[in-house]
Each structure stands twice: as structure tokens, then as C-alpha cells.
């Protein structure tokens, strides 16, 4: 009886510790002691110095390899300069969780966003103040056409991102799926060309065409799967193979179940 009570008490303590650990602020971000009383520009500068400057340089000049050769310890540069990238790039990388990167050599990938919206706005404003650059776009997918967007998407995007924006592979990198991206993030990525993605200027894809592309991506976020399970929208051939494998296994199992060996007697 006593042992059971000790056990319950121990479990409760552990649960309490776990709750506290869970409620802690996400680690890995360095913040000023108090964000109150700081102007947005000051807050942005402080957060930039604490979280971005290691790789992008204290004034956003980037950390580049010296003289195109590799430095000591085979360092090949840490981060690109941010002068002139504007609010557009900063907003994209921070709202998607691409930045900050734990390891500068790793591919930026969508992760939990650890900055608050206020902090993101402050850093974005600070990065925009480093040099003249593009502002955050304001796409309007409702003005676009899904069918035009489908054609543009197959022409420009589907080669890597697949026809229903499920993502895939290019040599050396993974291609992200676009199901979580907001309209603004898609518009930003098209203009930036993050990582190995090509850049599409307004000359290649106009803002009007971009609205249609976003309208198409929005429409495939929740496709109407008339056939039942979507199984990841991996395309008709693998879907058919999946069905065949399941059906074949079921048929073999049924045969084993009902079959009898002759000549047993």
C-alpha cells in the first residue's frame, strides 16, 4: 500500500517536471533581457546581433570564404550578405522557420517558428534598413484563375514541386511541399528562389500570373479525392501499384485460408 502511494507521488512529481519543461520558452533563440521599452529598430538590431550575425555578419555583410579558397578548417563561408535583400526575403525566411539555421551547412527546411510575430516584424524591418530592397508582396489569389494557374504551375514549378505541390527531389536537395505555405510566402519564394530554386522575376512571372499560381496551389491543398484515400498524392502509377500489392496480398492470404492440400489422407 505504502509502495503504491510512493509510486503515485513519484509519478505526479515527474508529471509536474514534464509540464514545467514543456512550458519553458523555446530554446535556441537569444533575446534581450526585456523587449519592452525598445523601439522596433532597436529590438530588430538586438535580435539580429544575437541570432543572425554569426553567419550573416554584424552589419549583414555576410561571412564569405576569403579569396574564393577555403579557409582554415575547410570553412566555405557561413551566410550570404543581406544588404539589398529587403523585407521580402527576411519575412519569408523567418515566417517559414527556415531561419535561424542550427548548422549553416544544412538545407533550410520548414520548422517551428521560434520568433514571435512582433520579433519577426522587428528583424524584418532591421534587415530592410540594411539597404534598399523589395518589400513584402501582397498577392491576391482571389484575383487569379485556377486553370491559368494550373498551366503556369506545370510549366514553371511542377518539374520539381510535382503536379499537386507535394514536393520531391533534385540532385543534392529535397524539394519542399507547398501545402503549408501562405499566399505571401509563395509569392516571396518565387521572387527569391530560396536555396537551389531558380529566381522568377516579374518579367518571367508577372504579379497577375503569380496570383493564378497561388490560386492553383490553394486549390490543391485540399484536393477532392473522389477515389477515396489520397495516399500522399504520389501519382497514378505508384497508387496503382499500392492497390495491386494490397489486393495481391489479400488474394494470396485468402487462397492460403481456403485451400487444402490434396492427398493428405
Amino acid at each position, binding site marked *: 500500500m505504502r509502495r503504491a502511494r510512493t509510486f503515485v507521488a513519484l509519478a505526479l512529481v515527474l508529471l509536474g517536471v514534464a509540464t514545467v519543461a514543456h512550458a519553458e520558452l523555446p530554446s535556441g533563440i537569444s533575446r534581450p533581457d526585456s523587449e519592452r521599452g525598445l523601439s522596433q529598430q532597436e529590438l530588430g538590431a538586438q535580435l539580429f546581433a544575437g541570432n543572425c550575425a554569426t553567419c550573416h555578419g554584424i552589419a549583414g555583410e555576410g561571412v564569405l570564404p576569403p579569396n574564393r579558397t577555403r579557409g582554415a578548417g575547410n570553412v566555405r563561408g557561413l551566410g550570404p550578405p543581406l544588404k539589398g535583400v529587403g523585407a521580402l526575403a527576411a519575412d519569408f525566411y523567418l515566417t517559414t522557420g527556415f531561419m535561424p539555421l542550427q548548422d*549553416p551547412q544544412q538545407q533550410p527546411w520548414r520548422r517551428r517558428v521560434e520568433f514571435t510575430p512582433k520579433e519577426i516584424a522587428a528583424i524584418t524591418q532591421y534587415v530592410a534598413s540594411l539597404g534598399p530592397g523589395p518589400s513584402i508582396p501582397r498577392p491576391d489569389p482571389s484575383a487569379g484563375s485556377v486553370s491559368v494557374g494550373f498551366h503556369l504551375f506545370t510549366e514553371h514549378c511542377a518539374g520539381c514541386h510535382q503536379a499537386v505541390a507535394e514536393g520531391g527531389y533534385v540532385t543534392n536537395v529535397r524539394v519542399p511541399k507547398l501545402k503549408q505555405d501562405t499566399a505571401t510566402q509563395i509569392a516571396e519564394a518565387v521572387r527569391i528562389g530560396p536555396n537551389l530554386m531558380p529566381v522568377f522575376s516579374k518579367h518571367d512571372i508577372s504579379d497577375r500570373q503569380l496570383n493564378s499560381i497561388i490560386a492553383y496551389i490553394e486549390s490543391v491543398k485540399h484536393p477532392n479525392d473522389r*477515389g477515396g484515400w489520397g495516399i500522399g498524392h504520389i501519382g497514378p502509377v505508384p497508387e496503382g501499384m499500392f492497390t495491386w500489392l494490397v489486393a495481391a496480398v489479400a488474394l494470396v492470404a485468402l487462397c492460403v485460408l481456403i485451400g487444402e492440400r490434396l492427398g493428405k489422407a
Partner: protein
Amino acid sequence: MKKLRRFAFIFGAASGTLRGKGHRKRIVEKGESDPAAELWLVGLLLLSAIFAVGFIVVYATGRWPHRTQYEGIALGGSLAFMAAALILVAKRLIVTEELTEEYPEEEHPKEQVEVNQIVRESGSRFTRRKLVGGAATAAGGALGLALVAPALSLGPALDTDELRWSPWKRGTRLVHEDGAPFSASEIEKDTFYTAYPEHEPRSDIAAPVVIVRLDPSELRLPPERKDWAPLGILAYSKICTHAGCALGLYRKPMFPPVEPSPALVCPCHYSTFDVADGGNVLFGPAGRALPQLPLMIDRRGRLRAGGNFSGPVGPSWWGVRKKPAVSPGDNS
């Protein structure tokens, strides 16, 4: 034979019974009746019928969501219960017996030996067996080849020169899909464009090219191609040299120190071609470099071909490296 006989028996027995001419002796042993199994059978068949009717109802009236799934469940259920009913019939209700049958004995062993002997002796007039056999093989083989020969029409096999043809020659302008010519000034870095030869058929495999632009300092072209990329603008065939897919992927590093070099990637099997050094294969199953199209910029700033490709376009074939690409007007 045995089956037929049994069938005849059953038929005769049935007609005999109908005519009331008394009973014949049973062939199949009388099995014990199994009312429980019969009841199960009736239940399964009725369930199958209910599901089938359900399908008709859903099909005729269904406007609700997931109608396809309900139809599938109804029809699938009907078939599943039907299958279960048949399994039940086979396992519990049909009277079965196990029979083994010996191999029949050879009926005319002596005659068979005789036939063999007759065949052997009938050929006694042949004295040059090998020669005749060779001639017959030649005739049969040649006839077989003649029947297969039309397969050559599937593609050029002996004269592969037409595979080298390309619509590009010195001075051909590069145009957009809508026919508007490309200006050098509109080609930006970090993106790629598809271009076609002006006034030439676009259906030809050698027609489409990819244009990309690099910083001239990034180029690592071989010395004989140093004039092929004015202002760092490069053009390559859009057709992969492995299986002929269109190169739809251009990977370009945003931060070159840590990211892979700019390259054209084929979406079919991920052949990857380095755009900076003349289209050499970096990765994948492609066996030879991507053909590069030399470029020049005319007085009005338009992009023009400076000649033909560095090699034949498209999937490889035997002897692909032996002769260059052929331009319209070339007589070779």
C-alpha cells in the same frame, strides 16, 4: 472421357427419374445433410443480395458526400458475401471424394518402334545429310530474318545521319514560344529560359534549347568554346542525352560557397549537367555531355546561334561521338 461418361450417367439418371423408370445405382456416395451450413448459405446469399440492392439505391439516389466510397462498399460487400457463399458450398455442402488414377499403359509399344523404323528408312536416299541440313537452315533462317526486317522502320539502324540533324545554324535567332526574339539584355541570372530556332520546325528534337546566364568569371568552358557564351549567356539542348526527356529543372545555388554548383537536372532519372563547364555530366545515368549551342549577340542586341551544337542532340546511339551535328544546308 471419364467425366463425359459420368455426365451421361447423370443425364440418363435424371431423365430416367423423370420418366419414372425406377432408380439407378448411385455414383456419388450419399452425403450427410447439413441444415446449419444450408442456413448459413441462405444468409450469405441474402446478404449479398441486400448489398447489391444497396448499390442500386446509392447509385440511383445518392447525392450525399463520399458516394463513390458507399458504392464501392456496397458492390464490394455483395461480391465478398457471394464469394463466402461459394466457399461455404465448396467446403461444407458438395459431396467430395478423392480419386487417383494410374498412368495408362502404353497401348501399342510394338507399332511405335515400327513407326520409328519406317521414318528412319524412308530417308535413306539422302547421302549428303549435312549439306541438305545446312541449306534448309539457311532457307529457314533467311525467311525468318525477312519477316523481322520491317522492324528496321522503327528507327534508323544503318544510316544514322538523320539523327544528327539539327535546325540550328550560324545566325539563327533564338525566339520565345510566341516567336518574339530573345534579347541578351532580358536574360537574367539565377533563372532559365526555353528558346526555339526562328522559322524552323519546333517538333524536331534538336529545336528546344535552355538559356541560362552565369557570371563570366564563373565559366569553366574548354578553350575552343571561349567565344560561345557572350556576357556569360549559355545555351544548351533541352533534351537529356540519356533517355530524351526535357530538362525541366535548373538548380542554382543561392549561396554558392555552401551549395551545389548551378546545373540542369533531368526530372526523369536525375541526370545532372554542369552548365559552367560545357554541360559535362555531374551525376546520373547520362553517358555524354549535354550538347552546347554557341551563342552570339547581333548589333541589335538579339541572341543568335553562333553555329551548330557541340554534338548530336538527344539519346545516344552507336557512333554518336564519331560525327558532329548537321545544320540545314550542310551537304554531308
